[in-house]
């Protein structure tokens, strides 16, 4: 290829005739001659081609969509994008030079601060990859806190998360065992938990609200049953606008996904893994931590701290291999919470509950449908059971331009003809009307 005049000047400076000479240390037997990839596209061509490909997608905004299961469609105030579009944030990397990176560091410190307020926990790291990764790392951390070789996990957890947890547990030679949920309430089956908490168990993970939507009402009892075992609580952080923080209920570790605060669904990624713990465990914690300090002039400043836990210092003895995390999404979360504020957040959370109650009640009036399947308070998700197969309903709704809830029976055979429905502040009354009309038609 042709070289620019600057490249030629640089080659001259290096006393080389061609760029090829810069690659003479690569032995001929491992050389390849270029890449079989089509010629590059201009911006116009790229936009045209990608638009054509993506037009085969049906976005959630083009059809009423009642999916949740870990990713939620919430309103994102326009100003969140204004803030996270600042290229000083986007195009920086990990703030290894804190003096020139105070903006990112303070924003991350504020993210940590918002999350300690919501969860009631002492320490929040500046992000894990996603909710599933946060859970997996919590299992490993429990094992560091309390040496048992077994870890208990509620059955009412998303299969995606359990799959990820299984891979991480296998690496650390930890055995995962499931604790049943109560068939009527969907909450942790305390008898099953008591029976399974044995000497070789390091801890227990359950969620509130759990995968099926119910809010866990027995956290005090669970804490008592676990005694000194590690209690890991999974949360939907938006529900914490209303609920008592798990930090006040004896949680040792709290995990979740903060995507609900100002991050697009993005087909599931990137999202942001929330990870919090008690201060006494901080040295066993994975991930980056931002701390407050001062500079040479005594000015309040921020920097990464307790890095001796991390791979760049401790290598094979590190608490985790994580390096790149989801920092930019932590800025989204902080910006979102600052924008909606205390009153706004409580209102949004309350709207979610109201929409869920209203939709669930309406579905329960359709012949052959039971909703919610589990009794007790829910946040914005609930299980619907019916006389029709969940597959039949799913296809019937899709044919009517509606994306119904997630079919549960493939993963939970005990929940025959059940599906998981989510509704948020994004659904209008008419979205609910359309779903109801379609269900009535099929019933």
């Amino acid at each position: 290829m042709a070289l620019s005049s600057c490249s030629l000047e640089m080659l001259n400076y290096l006393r080389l005739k061609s760029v090829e000479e810069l690659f003479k240390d690569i032995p001929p037997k491992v050389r390849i001659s270029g890449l079989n990839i089509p010629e590059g596209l201009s911006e116009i061509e790229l936009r045209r081609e990608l638009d054509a490909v993506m037009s085969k997608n049906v976005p959630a905004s083009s059809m009423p969509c009642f999916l949740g299961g870990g990713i939620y469609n919430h309103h994102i105030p326009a100003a969140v994008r204004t803030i996270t579009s600042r290229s000083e944030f986007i195009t920086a990397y990990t703030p290894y030079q804190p003096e020139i990176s105070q903006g990112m560091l303070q924003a991350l410190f504020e993210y940590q601060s918002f999350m300690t307020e919501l969860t009631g926990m002492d320490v929040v790291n500046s992000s894990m990859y996603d909710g599933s990764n946060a859970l997996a790392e919590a299992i490993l951390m429990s094992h560091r806190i309390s040496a048992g070789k077994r870890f208990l996990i509620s059955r009412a957890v998303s299969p995606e998360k359990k799959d990820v947890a299984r891979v991480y547990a296998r690496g650390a030679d930890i055995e995962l065992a499931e604790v049943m949920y109560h068939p009527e309430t969907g909450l942790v089956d305390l008898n099953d938990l008591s029976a399974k908490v044995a000497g070789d168990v390091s801890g227990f993970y359950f969620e509130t609200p759990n995968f099926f939507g119910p809010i866990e009402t027995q956290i005090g009892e669970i804490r008592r049953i676990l005694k000194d075992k590690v209690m890991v609580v999974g949360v939907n952080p938006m529900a914490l606008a209303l609920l008592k923080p798990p930090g006040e209920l004896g949680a040792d570790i709290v995990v979740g996904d903060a995507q609900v605060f100002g991050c697009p669904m993005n087909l599931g990624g990137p999202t942001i893994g929330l990870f919090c713990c008690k201060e006494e465990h901080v040295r066993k914690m994975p991930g980056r931590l931002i701390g407050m300090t001062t500079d040479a002039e005594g000015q309040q400043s921020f920097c990464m701290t307790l890095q001796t836990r991390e791979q760049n210092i401790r290598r094979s003895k590190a608490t985790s291999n994580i390096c790149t995390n989801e920092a930019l999404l932590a800025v989204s979360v902080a910006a979102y919470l600052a924008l909606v504020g205390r009153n706004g957040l409580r209102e949004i959370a309350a709207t979610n509950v109201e929409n869920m109650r209203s939709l669930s009640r309406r579905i329960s009036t359709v012949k052959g449908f039971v909703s919610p399947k589990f009794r007790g308070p829910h946040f914005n998700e609930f299980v619907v059971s019916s006389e029709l197969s969940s597959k039949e309903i799913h296809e019937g709704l899709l044919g009517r331009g509606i994306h119904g809830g997630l079919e549960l029976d493939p993963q939970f055979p005990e929940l025959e003809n059940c599906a998981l429905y989510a509704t948020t502040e994004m659904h209008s009354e008419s979205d609910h009307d359309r779903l109801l009309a379609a269900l009535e038609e099929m019933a």
Partner: protein
Amino acid sequence: MRYHQALHEVPLIFEGCDRPKDEEPFDPTLGGYLPMDMVREDLGIPDLTERDVVKHFVNLSQMNFGVDNGMYPLGSCTMKYNPKICDEIVTWKTVADMHPLQDPSTIQGSLRLMYELERLLCEIAGMDAVSLQPAAGAQGEFTGVHIVRAFHEANGEVRKEVIVPDSAHGTNPASAAMVGYDVLELPSREGLVDTEALKAAVSKDTAAFMLTNPNTLGLFEKNVKEVAGIIHDSGSLLYYDGANLNAIMGKTSPGKMDFDIVHFNLHKTFATPHGGGGPGAGPVGVKGKLEEFLPVPRILEQNGQFSLDYDRPKSIGKVRAFFGNYAVLVRAYAFIRMNGGNGLTSISENAVLNSNYLKERLKDDFELPYGDLRKHEFVLSGRPLKAKGLRTIDFAKRLLDHGFHAPTIYFPLVVDEAIMIEPTESETKETLDRFADSCKAILKEDPELLRTAPHNTARRRLNEAKAARDMIFSWRDYLEKKEAPARQETGVTRA
């Protein structure tokens, strides 16, 4: 050259925001729906105006240095320019507004893009199959090492050790340990893998050798075929850390070098923005014999229709929920398509040319261990600074005053007072010259100016030891700390 970073007085967002009194008390039970003993009493987050929130974060952003502000030669991180069209595409509703559990018939565009990205990455790396699921390079390593373990277990073997060179990224040994392996560290010889030491290290217990090529010193491991032979003869696998892929596109490939597994760092090589620490994406590629172990689901294509295949009994499982960091994948796909095969090759040529030019301009001012020719990055030793009572960190901090982000310092560990410089292909000769001129000028400056640097940034040098001592991780910690002396005086303690 004059530079000064913006300085704004930006109090923490919680500061000065006394909790507003409710005009009408909020009922968190929502009319008795939630039990009283389960709801929170108060919510300690501030109520602000949109105007003030935007001002707060915009002013913070101005106290942050990104690639868009200037040269960011952070070695091993490939801080290249991020084309803006890629950021625009991911705001489309057809990209951002998609739920991962949607019926496959409604995400055909996304599946096609991911399927094609897998094929493009296979071509670049000389691999047969790719999974896009890992969320970052380290998670890619973790996935790759799990594949190593699954491969040996499928052969009925339990192998206990993974070998890494002493110049390896810290993530390599950390990832191997997380999959349950003991890690052996191999000493380098003249900056390269010592094949004799490797032969001595390899045994029936060796599961894999993790290597980056070019390595972290920017040197191409010329003996890579011999290394591969030693590893494969022992029945173990060769793992390629793709952090340095920007040096070799179109010139060689991990597959051609006989690597079995590779992870990519899309945020490095394929220009997706680093986001102040993330998100990234760390896809994993493998040779055909290992495809059955890749994470589920796999994307299948038949007559232009795409579907998801979970029926892979030998798969390691899942390492991340759903499809991985999809919005990052979309950006990387766009970058690859905009450059094409020739463009990618030319990226590597320019990255290597820039690196060697800059190295040549600076090597006599510092020390350059281990020969001359480098690939995309080079590591100088700041040892000569010691004569003036200075260290590499002082030089790095002073570079900030000249308007450059500092290189990676004190890594790799095999070089004393290491200064690891990766200019990338994005910078022009003029910028490289300005950088070299600044480095040279700094060496002639009053040592006191370096020792007390930086001077022109929003903050002067930080007391990092104090942060570790004080352990203030949140607004709440800060308040408690501030109140602590008063509490001590009055004898108030925490119940």
